[in-house]
């Protein structure tokens, strides 16, 4: 069990700056994120898109903003737990015990949810019948590619993941690649390779088709795919892979007993605390009258939530407001010499 002053859920810009604010005032924190990298939406959705409304930064991309925030955290010792999603929370004697899907458990008086619009989850196939095969014959990511050896694998999608796996698996499997339109959006070199493998008969290409229904009796046996013009084809298949990108879901946090407003969490504007003492929400995921979904608002909310954490993390100390320009204790935390 990891004990810490505050646990931050979400490593997007708001989560990162909140970590900065906690460390500035002498509190330790840990950060959990479901993605495999730091940066949240800025990195996952728009790394190359310029942002124009960060104060004092006339223009920067999502990636640059993320890198600057990471640099700003350099003086501090912060543990990131990437590829982990928070699952459960329970209160034990005033401490929150938060458990992730990897089994990591945190014990902390403060949990700050900086989850953006939720955690990124793979988009799934439309037909409900797919659920019964999920994790057995239908996958949205690949953990062990050996299981596909000498089997028939039907891959759906038009981006790099679908194309890369089609090429890779075609070496040892019979591969069907199915996409809803003629155009693919992957790297041209991979696409050329796919067409080459199609000519050689190593990949069967079906465009303008989508999955209609999986068939089988407990075990997947075949799939019906439907053309844009409604024509249906049946393909024998052992496995189905879907690569449709990611969608944001509130996930298990929705069941934590917090007051929700659509996909957002209601907070007060003094501490950005939810209806549970010691659980805060900051950034895009919080809602209050007048809320703006701007990165700068997330920074402000994180700064206030961090101060609120102090009281619960250091119940016997008094919080004293100080500036980074003049406080010798803050400068020490930053590893700078004071005058």
């Amino acid at each position: 069990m990891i004990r810490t002053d505050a646990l931050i859920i979400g490593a997007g810009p708001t989560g990162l700056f909140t970590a900065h604010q906690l460390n500035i005032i002498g509190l330790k924190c840990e950060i959990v994120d479901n993605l495999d990298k730091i940066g949240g939406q800025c990195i996952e959705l728009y790394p190359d898109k310029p942002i124009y409304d960060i104060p004092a930064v006339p223009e920067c991309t999502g990636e640059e903003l993320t890198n600057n925030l990471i640099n700003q955290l350099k003086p501090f010792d912060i543990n990131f737990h990437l590829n982990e999603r928070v699952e459960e929370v329970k209160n034990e004697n005033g401490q929150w015990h938060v458990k992730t899907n990897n089994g990591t458990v945190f014990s902390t008086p403060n949990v700050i949810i900086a989850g953006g619009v939720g955690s990124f989850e793979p988009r799934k196939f439309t037909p409900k019948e797919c659920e019964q095969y999920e994790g057995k014959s239908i996958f949205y990511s690949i953990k062990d590619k050996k299981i596909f050896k000498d089997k028939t694998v039907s891959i759906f999608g038009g981006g790099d993941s679908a194309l890369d796996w089609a090429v890779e698996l075609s070496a040892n499997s019979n591969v069907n690649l199915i996409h809803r339109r003629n155009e693919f959006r992957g790297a041209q070199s991979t696409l050329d390779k796919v067409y080459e493998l199609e000519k050689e008969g190593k990949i069967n290409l079906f465009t303008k088709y989508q999955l209609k229904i999986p068939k089988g009796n407990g075990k997947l046996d075949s799939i019906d795919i439907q053309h844009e013009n409604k024509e249906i084809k049946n393909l024998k298949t052992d496995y189905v892979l879907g690569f449709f990108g990611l969608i944001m879901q509130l996930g298990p946090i929705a069941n934590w007993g917090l007051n929700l407003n659509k996909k957002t969490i209601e907070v007060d504007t003094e501490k950005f605390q939810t209806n549970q003492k010691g659980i805060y929400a900051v950034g895009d995921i919080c809602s209050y009258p007048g809320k703006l979904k701007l990165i700068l608002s997330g920074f402000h909310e994180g700064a206030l939530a961090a101060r609120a954490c102090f009281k619960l993390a250091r119940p016997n100390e008094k919080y004293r407001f100080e500036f980074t320009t003049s406080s010798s204790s803050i400068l020490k935390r930053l590893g700078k010499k004071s005058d």
Partner: protein
Amino acid sequence: MPKITYIENNGKSHTVEVDKGLTVMEGAVQNNISGIDADCGGSMACATCHVYVKEEWYNKINEKSEGEDDMLDQAHNPNKFSRLSCQISVTDEIDGLVVDLPEKQ
């Protein structure tokens, strides 16, 4: 002001006036019409404002922007009338536009 009709997947229909210059997505969000999430706020990065444009309207609205079809690959159950509503501009020409909303985003 142009009128736009949004029909939810359960059949519930909403006809609202939307200011020119906004997008069909913004028209839905500003009028609290459920069924359009618009997680990314209109930057064409998430495919959660997916709509099906009625066939008779499909060729009358502005054409797909570059990259829109790439995002639509990720939408829930797309068909040939699928569009991202954040990429449809509201003009006098589309007064009366009708869009169907998908079962989920």
